[in-house]
């Protein structure tokens, strides 16, 4: 049954075309603006206590910087309120183990690696408002399932 005109190569060529379309659309989406963390800065565990303070900074014009500490087992601050945000710079730090930071129902989903500050820039769509649940989505020990916080967006 070998070699009936090499139909397998026609098939492979069609698959390559489909995959190339997928890759092109991913590249296009990246050009539109990819608001997920590829930014990181080193923050040694010993220095973090003095240099990284959790809290919200209003940068004006609808921009906020939110600094969050992820720890065993919770987030500090545990609740953040933002007034009509246009752009949120989320900086999340862990000084114990790996945690996750996922805003449920959005594509904000980042690993928080101990010793590093993860930075995500998120421009929440206008239809997002009210209380958003943020969960730790990386296993971090026996209290893992109780680790969550809230972000409240007021429009």
């Amino acid at each position, binding site marked *: 049954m070998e070699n009936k005109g090499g139909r*397998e190569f026609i098939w492979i060529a069609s698959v390559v075309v489909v995959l190339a379309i997928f890759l092109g659309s991913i590249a296009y989406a*990246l050009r539109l603006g990819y608001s997920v963390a590829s930014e990181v800065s080193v923050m040694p565990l010993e220095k973090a206590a003095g240099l990284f303070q959790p809290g919200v900074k209003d940068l004006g014009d609808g921009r906020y910087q939110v600094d969050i500490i992820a720890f065993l087992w919770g987030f500090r601050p545990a609740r953040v309120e933002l007034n009509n945000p246009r752009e949120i710079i989320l900086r999340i730090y862990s000084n114990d183990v*790996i945690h996750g930071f996922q805003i449920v*129902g959005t594509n*904000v989903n980042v690993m928080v690696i101990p010793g590093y500050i993860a930075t995500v820039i998120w421009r929440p769509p206008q239809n997002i408002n009210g209380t958003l649940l943020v969960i730790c989505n990386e296993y971090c020990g*026996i209290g893992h399932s109780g680790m969550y916080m809230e972000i409240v967006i007021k429009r």
Partner: protein
Amino acid sequence: MISERAFIRVSIIFSYIVLALGGLFGFLQLVSRTPRAPKLVDESQYYAILTGHGVLLAILWTAFFILGLAVFVVSSELGKPFRRSLLAVSVILAILGTAIASYPIIWGLLIGEPTMGAVLYTFYPPLTAHPAFYIGLALVLIGSWVFAASVFDVFIRWRKENRGIAIPLGTFGVLATLIIWLEATPGLAIEVLYDLIPMSLFGKRVDVLLDRTLFWYFGHPLVYFWLVPAITAWYALIPRILNTELYSTRAAKLALVIFILTSTPVGLHHQFADPGLNVAWKYLHTVLTFAVSLGSFLTAFNVIMTLAHAGILRGGSGLFGWISRLPWKDPVFSSITLAFILLGLGGVGGIVNASLNLNNVVHNTTWVVGHFHTTVGGAVTLTFIGISYLLAPVLLGRSIASQPMARIQPYLWFIGLVVFSIAYHIAGIYSAPRRTYDYSYGGLSPSMWEPLLQIGMIGGLIFWISGVLFISNILLTPFIGRPAPKLDGASILGANGSNEKATLLDRISLWVIIAVILIIIAYTLPIAELLGRGLSPAICITPAGIKPFT
């Protein structure tokens, strides 16, 4: 010193013990995490059991079955004896390593200290387990290298006497599997030997981002270490069962070559959500992951064409008429073919996982759990179940205890898996997290999670029951199975010393060189980025939140 036959028996029967225990753990954690279902275990036990489920099934059940299967295939096809000392050393190291690595999990559960071994099967530092966990894994790893040496030893001796002859397809698959393993395991070896064992023994501080990168350098090719044997089995067995030929042997070998080339330089697609790795490298790994999917697409085509031809030869007509003519009542055929369909489901989801912006929606959600249950739990495990029905006479000298039970079992597995994984995929799109004991989150969790997780549990229970049917069927076979005529491997695989000429595809060393070049390209850049920024070592902590060395 053990014979090939004894090796095959020991490793495959041991794999069934591992499967049974891993399955029990699966049942306990599945029910415990489902909203409104009874909590069979408490939170700290849950994570130890989840660790056991992952380590036993994803790493050990697959590995032990593959070791036995590889010796069966290579000794039947090449007709050359293995060095018995190498076989003995490898199986002893692997079983000893398994026992040592399981000790903190199982003993920890028994004495009420479940956090001894609760680091899950990805064991990301700085969470730390009892040192035995890492030492046992290292022994399994060394055993697997000795095993690879034993297969290459046989192959090289065969090659010397058969220059210019094409490598038989089954052996080609085994070689591809072991090459992938040897490409991948250095990453794990460096992580475990250099960082994790010293961390758990002496409290060495480790850089977590670097260790995650090393882990996933190994972690994704591991998937192909499971999958390539299953795919090879489809190529080798489906034509035998249907009494026909494979549509294209050339395309089959090409698919295996694609796996050799691109199964390793793709690990960053597990780290799309990791900060600190440039998006350019992530995109490169997306491209390479799409390239590795070509091997699966090619397999899909080849297998479907083979099935269609067989169906048409049996009188099927029209576009789909061939389907009903296939031997769906034969448990070997149905297991393998249903496994093949599950790989289709897993493959489509895999394309989503590999697309770096879509991955952001599903990373670390139940979507991922749904995905790998269709692949390792579906495509791989159901294929191995089918092979078990075929090999029972060889392994146990008897045909399977209950043929009717064997006939139903693959369908139950398939239905259960489809229900489980579709529900978990959808829950994942709604951000339901994986690896968590409790989904309530102070009453804030989306209302869609609960019903989807409950449907998932029903699916999970269906394929768990199917697993119980399989294990009990195997268990009963030595006692009530009818004595079967002694089959030898060559007659099952149809290996009768074909004299086909070798082609470019048979030049394995060439493919290995290209694979190594691809790996160097794909990993030099991210590793240089990590080291160039400067590391930031963390302090180890137990899952109970205790720092054991400060």
